[in-house]
């Protein structure tokens, strides 16, 4: 295999000529995988050649792979308001390092993105960053994300909002959720719900279970997620009678109970979708006690007998929803395999050191995860828990379908004539996750110090250079 690139260097520069020979192409958008070659000229995919068995002999999926650019439906770029933790520019650089060419920013900034003016400021920050990574932005569902009255949904939609969410906080009021679904549905946009019952999670610190009990942390019950998911589905079913375009998306589901509800709702034909995160499917609450085993490596032995290789209470593991036990983690993976989960999102949540260098119970929730997502998924692939094509689909065709339903024209896959939007990853290489290796300003990753499989060599977005190793 070979990659030759002409005149690279500056981020944002149009790719004049790029040739990738004898690589393993995976294109879930075209539903195709195999050995192939790619030629990019002047930013466009000039040739995509799929090799037959004889021509492609020796090209393996464990070597260099070329895939469509990844799409992240859920990131926090912290601008405006929390630029110490991340800016649009640093967040887009981190996205490109992680292989993402499209990211969807949540509106829980300060001020919240609840009107077209703030919306425009965020888009302008992306434009001036020089990054070719496409930034899509959600509008807040309610004014100030306070859950009391609907935000300027129509104006936000006109400005380009891809959907509406109060993420970071649940939609407390069933009435607001109902009206939001109706109004957003009328606009052809989904409501993205962070499902959490705040009464059940008041003061909660870690998944309710053995680890929380032993470490003396206040339990975060499964029902705090499955309860609101059940409520949301009931409201959606109701709303559909009046507004058939209403669509509800549950983000970062973390429990078997909630995923089962979505599975059944999908089987019943409800227009519901959901996503899971790499950390909820690969990490468990056992990490808070000091384990560093992937979820699928935890065997039947209870945690009390398991190896504890790190200190307890690492605040980089504090996240909302919390890391669950290995059974829920396995359910997240299973949901990905059977299509219950439409996408993997990173819920990239950068925080400053100050916000994490505190007692576990006082630490900010969130994991800086956009640069480690593909590595975590490839670890699952390497462990034979996840087919490669499904892993890539969860980052490409899955989220693309949700965005297209909201009117987004992107993600055409590895097809000739389209602007080059692709990632080149060497699966035979690992890389060490370190604070210095992360482009994000948020170094709050529980994977620091760990080797992850699959090194991103090149990210091309919209025909332009987004990242080069």
């Amino acid at each position, binding site marked *: 295999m070979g990659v030759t690139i002409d005149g690279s260097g500056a981020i944002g520069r149009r790719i004049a000529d790029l040739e990738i020979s004898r690589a393993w192409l995976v294109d879930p958008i075209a539903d195709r995988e195999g050995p192939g070659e790619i030629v990019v000229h002047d930013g466009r995919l000039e040739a995509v050649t799929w090799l037959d068995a004889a021509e492609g002999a020796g090209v393996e999926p464990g070597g260099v792979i070329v895939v469509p650019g990844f799409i992240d439906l859920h990131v926090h770029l912290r601008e405006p308001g929390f630029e110490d933790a991340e800016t649009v520019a640093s967040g887009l650089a981190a996205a490109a390092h992680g292989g993402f060419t499209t990211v969807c920013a949540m509106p829980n900034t300060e001020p919240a993105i609840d009107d077209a003016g703030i919306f425009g400021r965020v888009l302008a920050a992306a434009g001036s960053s020089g990054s070719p990574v496409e930034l899509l932005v959600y509008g807040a569902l309610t004014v100030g994300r306070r859950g009391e009255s609907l935000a300027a949904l129509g104006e936000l939609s006109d400005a380009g909002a891809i959907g509406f969410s109060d993420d970071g906080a649940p939609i407390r009021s069933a009435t607001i959720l109902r009206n939001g679904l109706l109004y957003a549905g009328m606009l052809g946009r989904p409501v993205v719900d962070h499902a959490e019952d705040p009464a059940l999670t008041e003061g909660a*610190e870690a998944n*309710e*279970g*053995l680890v*929380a*009990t*032993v*470490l*003396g*942390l*206040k*339990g975060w019950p499964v029902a705090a997620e499955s309860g609101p998911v059940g409520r949301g589905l009931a409201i959606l079913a109701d709303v559909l009678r009046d507004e058939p375009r209403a669509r509800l998306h549950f983000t970062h589901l973390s429990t078997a109970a909630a995923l089962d509800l979505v599975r059944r709702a999908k089987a019943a034909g409800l227009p519901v979708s959901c996503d899971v995160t790499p950390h909820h499917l690969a990490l468990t609450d056992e990490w808070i006690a000091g384990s560093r085993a992937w979820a699928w490596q935890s065997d039947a*032995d*209870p*945690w*009390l*007998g398991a190896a504890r290789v790190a*200190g*307890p*209470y690492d605040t980089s593991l504090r996240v909302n929803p919390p890391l669950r036990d290995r059974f829920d983690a396995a359910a997240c993976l299973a949901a990905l395999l059977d299509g219950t989960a439409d996408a993997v999102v990173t819920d990239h949540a950068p925080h400053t050191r*100050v916000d994490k*260098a*505190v*007692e*576990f*119970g*006082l630490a900010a929730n969130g994991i800086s995860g956009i640069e480690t997502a593909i590595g975590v998924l490839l670890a699952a692939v390497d462990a034979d828990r996840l087919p490669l094509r499904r892993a890539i689909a969860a980052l490409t065709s899955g989220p693309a379908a949700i965005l297209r339903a909201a009117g987004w024209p992107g993600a055409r896959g590895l097809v000739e004539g389209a602007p080059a939007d692709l990632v080149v990853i060497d699966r035979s290489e690992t890389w060490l996750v370190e604070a210095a290796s992360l482009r994000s300003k948020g170094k709050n990753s529980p994977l620091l110090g760990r080797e992850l499989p699959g090194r991103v060599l090149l990210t091309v977005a919209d025909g332009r250079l987004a990242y080069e190793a």
Partner: protein
Amino acid sequence: MTAASPDRAASAPVATAHQVPLVDAEPASQGTTWAHRHLLDLDRVTWPEIELVMRTTQAMKEVLGRPIARVPALRGSGVTILFYEASTRTRVSFEVAAKNLSADVVNIAAASSSVSKGESLIDTIRTVEALGARMIVIRHPTSGAADLAAEHFSGSILNGGDGWHAHPSQALLDLFTLRERVPGGDLHGRKIVILGDVLHSRVARSNIWSLTAAGADLWLCAPATLMRGFERWAAASAGVPGHGRFQVTSDIGAALRDADVIMALRLQRERMAAGLLPSLREYAARYGLTLERLALARPDALVMHPGPMNEGIEIAPEVADHPRSVITDQVTNGVAVRMALLYLLAGTGVAGAGGAAAGPTGAAEALGG
């Protein structure tokens, strides 16, 4: 454990106490040394190490019996007692223990320090270290605070209670008291009941490790809302070799029947506001340790309480003052146990220094030197 590098530990000044040769009081202690720089919980303390603490405590108790209960073991060592929660018993117990060992004791109550101005725990620990502390006894309302302090301190952290998580010195003084009072000093097969608000109790959690390690037949008893999650812990422990088993029940009759020891836990009034219990009256009626309930236990059963007590709620006054109550012994032994812990930790905070880390330990005679 960034601050825990051996180099930094080794470069620390040597505590004078450990230049005094120690004579072993009991041959059985041969070979067991104290290897932990910090005492954060008992989950990773081995049974031989617990026995070493027990023997050292015995030696300290002999010191306490002297007309002048003061030895120079920690002379010149800075011990800072950093309490983020109101406490009389534990704070004073540590202070007396440290002073008995001739340590330079500094007391910091969170409300009267820059903590109330918003200084982070890590900054406070660094400040205390810069001011010369070699050991910090920390009490904090957040679980894991002692672990966090240990990560950022080059000396030794002694956990004086963190959130709901751990209170190792209390569990060790409970164990010492029991071994003094239970015939034969052996807890194997003895039915010990921890009764009350287990969910919010760091005392219960630490005692689970030590009492099961001692071979006791441990029972936890509470209304279901105050014991949530412990059923799973008990089930998990039952399946792991080397982990002590214990039982959980909300049936107080089953729990107390033929018990050898009953340890009542304090009930915080805010549990009612949180909707965990209907009323104090109902709790006292159903789970209070009364004379009537005490009669379910063995005739020689012992009564314990980590304090402070709500008499008339979790424990009836007549039970607290009963001849079989060892609550006062717990307080007395608390000083001896904390002297032992400070002494043992001082031997590890300075790599290569003599004392506990260097070999046989625990002679009252040597401590008198």
